[in-house]
């Protein structure tokens, strides 16, 4: 067998005179990256993070309370889950409420390009939360997950706005009852 170890020892000596041995408890690359991402978040006044277990930074909840636009007055929460391959895979993001939104389906799945086909490892959590925030300000009908909501938005913005208010109050639209998300009455 090739004597690789003598080369390894030589490399180690060259790199470190006092020889850093062992790596019994190494921080995983995903944790390292999320730590960096978190310290660079800009949450503003409309967003808040909640960590059910602060030691597990790969799982947290983001609260969004839009202060303008159609969804103003609502409180929406999203679970963020980063897998061991983050940032080579996008974070998994789900809305915890059943809401009426053309880009979020009834199970909470979110259609945001950077969470799927346009994700790149150079993007970070801040890019995702900016994207989510934007979805509440500018819901778009062109890439829908909730087809009815998208059709409503396309045909009449006024009608769509009315439906959003009904849904946010816990009302029903076409037989589907939505979760009440209003923080004010």
């Amino acid at each position, binding site marked *: 067998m*090739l004597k*690789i170890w003598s080369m*390894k020892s030589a490399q180690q000596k060259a790199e470190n005179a006092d020889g850093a*041995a062992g790596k019994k408890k*190494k921080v995983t690359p995903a944790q390292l990256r999320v730590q*960096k991402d978190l310290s660079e978040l800009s949450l503003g006044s409309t967003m808040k993070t909640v960590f059910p277990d602060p030691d597990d930074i790969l799982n947290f909840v983001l609260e969004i309370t839009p202060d303008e636009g159609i969804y103003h007055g609502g409180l929406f929460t999203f679970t963020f889950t980063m897998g061991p391959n983050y940032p080579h895979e996008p974070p998994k993001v789900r809305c915890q409420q059943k809401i009426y939104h053309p880009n979020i389906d009834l199970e909470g799945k979110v259609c945001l390009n950077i969470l799927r086909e346009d994700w790149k490892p150079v993007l970070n959590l801040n890019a995702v939360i900016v994207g989510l925030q934007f979805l509440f300000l500018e819901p778009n009908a062109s890439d829908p997950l909730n087809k009815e909501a998208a059709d409503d938005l396309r045909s009449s913005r006024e009608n769509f706005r009315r439906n959003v208010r009904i849904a946010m109050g816990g009302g029903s639209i076409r037989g589907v009852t939505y979760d009440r998300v209003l923080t004010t009455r």
Partner: protein
Amino acid sequence: MAAAATESGVSRWQYLDHIRRTRGPFNQDSDVSEEALATLDKTKILVIGAGGLGCEILKNLALSGFKDIHVIDMGTNSYALAPDTIDISNLNRQFLFRKDDVGKFKAEVAAKFVEKRVQGVKITPHNCRIQEFDEDFYMQFQMVVCGLDSIEARRWINATLVNMVDMENQDSLKPLIDGGTEGFKGQTRVVFPTLTPCIECQLDLYTPRAAVPLCTLATIPRQPEHCIEWAHIIAWDQEKPFPSLDKDDPEHITWLYRKALARAQEFGITGVTYSLTQGVVKNIIPAIASTNAIIAASCCNEALKIATTAAPSLGFEESYMMYSGDDSIYTNTFKYEKKEDCAVCGEVAKPLEVNPNWTLRELLDSFSTKADLQLKKPSIRAEGKTLYMQFPPSIEEQTRSNLDKTLKEGLGLDVNHEVAVTDPAFPALTFRFILRFA
């Protein structure tokens, strides 16, 4: 003469042994001794993948004199949760499989076939995903050869082997030989984990296949493949025309083809055909038997050279051999540079001497005064433990009480634990330290 060689017939190994007994400019007397010759019998080698490349690799390793081979096949079918089994479409190039083997596990059939063909070799099959094994399993091998078509699996084994390297254990550094093909193109790489560039360092050599978002499939297909995936994933699930999808049943494929075709017409998309439907549904990656043979052969020769030191191997100078048969033939062997900021093998943690009785606050204060750090707002974590984060506010509040705890007693930190320190003033940097107690 090595014992096993005599048992299985002298003639088979005669010429190989002759090469190995001959002293050349690149080996020493100790490399050509009878003792050194016998080491090949004891080398335990792991093959990952038992598909087109894997079959070739197993055959070649056995014919090169390796005696103790393990093979894992985890399946490449992205829709199946179970290990991939032999499909009728594999038989054209995965030559260890016969028609009777359809439906059986690849690793098992391949192992049995080569064992029967090459006397004296022991091949142990594992029908599972590589991720199901831990470091203890991988530690038993001297070398790993990959013949995979999954980038994820390559990256996983690469990261595992890099993480296993332990300065206190000579046997922890396992050479990784990686072969890959696509159509007429292929590559062979050798990685000596932590010593030479790893797979992750070379990740930008791949052009990722774009995943189609479900919302595109559901609402605005643009390509014939989108219509087929829609029929496969959405329409089949809604209508359930047969109890379960059999990708070899022409009736099932025809159903998907008709559905996809109708959808394509609805959206004015052309190009949906029966064979495209079959290709998309079966997730067929163009594979050419002879490209597999070329790449597998070069992988196995590198394995033999590393195991026997018969000749210099790929790895320390040049580490990457590319083969291209797309436009006549071209091959090039080149040196790939290690990436300083590689997520897997870069940023080696530096030792940091601390007093175990310091509070976390005292440790953080020391970061602000240390000349080579000068951090004003450090956040610090250990593996699976958030020690103190300055941001976001909620986690700052949750971890604030740690500041007055001592490192060893209070926070459970110990020698050889790694800590990672970030500071918003240096967004591009993560400082990693291995704790040493003063």
